[in-house]
């Protein structure tokens, strides 16, 4: 049994016009203990929404459904709100993209770290202070004692993210969800934060779900990767396999867009943009931007390939960079 099991998670939002917008569409994911799984995709691919659904942090307009959504064997969707609150912040924690705005400007760092300790562990004032100092030390904040009385606006972005991490790991969670933890920071700090997260995974025995749009981050940290596009999961593989032989054209295009892999004078980019709410096709959502698209791609929804092809959601998954027909009835595909 995996630590976190998600099967066919779907999140829909009620729009003002009364329609439903599907932000996450039948996403499945299993995270084992101590594992680092990365979810990759462009903005609007539903990465964050899926994880916010796991945390139960979506607004009331969201409709979450899943065949299975369990954490450590417990059905998250069946829990009462208060039972769920006793789980999040304690066993599942999350950090966010914008560390500067994620800390409350009105309270000191010490107060904000101490809150989770008081709520979940019932620690007294002195114990909270001691534990907070320990936590700040653990995330690499110099002179932690004096930092406890600092307000968030007195911290840099990197420091704020370290404080967020200290808050998240305060109750020794089994799973930490990091939603683009380094995106808002400058490059040298990014690397430090990622190193810190990997180190904490080792020290704390926790699993890590890393949401990112940066394939470089994936290559350096994750053991397994899930690629999402427009709310759908398009490929899932180990990091090594994914980088060696991407099976979905979208994954291949993402990898080709890495500056490190560029060979010509111009950086390769994926043309067009993620389809919006109203322009999703009946067929494959990636078809309009896909270099390998066939007529069938825009009319028929693709089937999912087997695990040997990274469960790619594609009519003609790539093998060694060349499309192969999943379905014999497809014509015109070079073998």
């Amino acid at each position, binding site marked *: 049994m995996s630590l976190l099991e998600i099967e066919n998670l779907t999140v829909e939002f009620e729009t003002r016009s009364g329609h439903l917008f599907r932000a996450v569409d039948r996403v499945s994911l299993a995270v084992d203990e101590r594992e680092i799984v990365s979810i990759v995709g462009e903005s609007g691919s539903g990465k964050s929404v899926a994880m916010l659904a796991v945390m139960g*942090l979506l607004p009331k307009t969201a409709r979450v459904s899943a065949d299975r959504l369990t954490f450590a064997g417990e059905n998250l969707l069946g829990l009462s709100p208060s039972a769920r609150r006793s*789980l999040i*912040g304690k066993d599942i924690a999350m950090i966010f993209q914008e560390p500067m705005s994620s800390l*409350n*400007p*009105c309270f000191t760092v010490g107060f904000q770290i101490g*809150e989770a300790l008081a709520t979940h562990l019932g620690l007294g004032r002195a114990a909270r202070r001691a534990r907070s100092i320990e936590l700040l030390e653990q995330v690499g904040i110099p002179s932690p004692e004096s930092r406890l009385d600092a307000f968030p606006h007195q911290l840099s972005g990197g420091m704020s993210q370290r404080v967020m991490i200290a808050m998240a790991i305060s109750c020794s969670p089994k799973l930490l969800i990091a939603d683009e933890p380094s995106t808002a920071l400058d490059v040298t700090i990014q690397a430090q934060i990622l190193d810190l997260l990997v180190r904490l995974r080792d020290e704390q025995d926790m699993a890590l779900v890393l949401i990112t749009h940066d394939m470089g981050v994936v290559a350096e940290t994750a053991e397994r990767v899930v690629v999402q596009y427009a709310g759908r999961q398009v490929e899932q593989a180990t990091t090594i396999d994914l980088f060696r032989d991407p099976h979905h054209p979208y994954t291949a295009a993402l990898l080709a867009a890495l500056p490190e892999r560029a060979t010509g004078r111009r950086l390769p980019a994926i043309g067009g943009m993620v389809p919006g709410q109203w322009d999703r096709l009946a067929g494959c959502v990636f078809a309009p931007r896909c270099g390998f698209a066939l007529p069938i791609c825009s009319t028929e929804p693709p089937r999912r390939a087997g695990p040997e092809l990274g469960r790619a959601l594609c009519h003609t998954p790539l093998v060694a960079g060349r499309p192969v027909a999943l379905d014999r009835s497809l014509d015109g595909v070079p073998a």
Partner: protein
Amino acid sequence: MLAFIVRRISLTVPTLIALCFLTFMAIRLVPGDPIEVRRGERGISPERLEFFRHELGLDQPVWKQFLDYVWSLMHGDFGISIISQDSVLHEFLTLFPATVELSLFATLFAVLLGVPAGILAAVKRGSVWDHGIMGVALFGYSMPVFWWGLLLVLFCSVQLDLTPVSGRIDLLFYFEPVTGFMTIDSLLSGQDGAFSSAISHLILPAIVLGTIPLAAIARMTRSSMLEVLEEDYVRTARAKGLPPWRVIGLHALRNALIPVVTTIGLQGGTMLAGAVLTETIFAWPGIGKWLIEAIFRRDYPALQGGVLLISTLLVIVNMSVDILNAAINPRIRHGR
């Protein structure tokens, strides 16, 4: 924090100088002077008119009058009321506690009802609660003070006989003012029923005076809360697994209160403007009534002094609001 307070106080000095100049000039722009108003329809001889004007210094050039006025102000002399021949400062200080008491209770009424109503409307956005509260708030905000006052008197005092119609306390009670606050003095007097009489006289005027600020505070709290509830740090607080009352009542409210406190402070001006009408309706012996009479009689020193003193108080109230905001919001405190 101390540096902030000192800096904030020094900023009020230019404001006070400008205020002094404006009050002085504005009153002299109104046609007629105290002598003309007092001489009545029969009129007086030009010689006596000249004599009185000279006595009051009104025959001097305006700039000279202003300098004389500032000079005496700097000696703490606000002048003598032309009507009552009493010192302006003394008159003001005698009447002022009544207005303060009324305003304080009105503010209390507005804040205690307005802030929770605003929070409820924001948290239950789009629900019956939200629409109900905002509808009532709009109604209250649009209600003319004198009309609202008369309606309440008609309903509560005349129809239901719940509260007295006017004054600060029943005529049965008499005691020397100690603090000038009827609620405190009545307690100090030790007379049976004096306190409850003072309170029952206070309720209606406080509600009338507090209605507009109540509506403004409720609306401000709602919009400020709605904005804050979308913030990342509120999501962080929820991600910690904190109970909703703590997320809303502590993490969101503390941030949402910053503009609300400013609104409460700004309502100070509305309070005094409203006090003029409210005091007139309920025959409440305060500053509002006094100023209205001073205008009708062109009592220059009383009006100048009264307006200046009230403006000074407003400046102090606004300053306290800034200081209070600095206490709530560390970013203001650290000058960023």
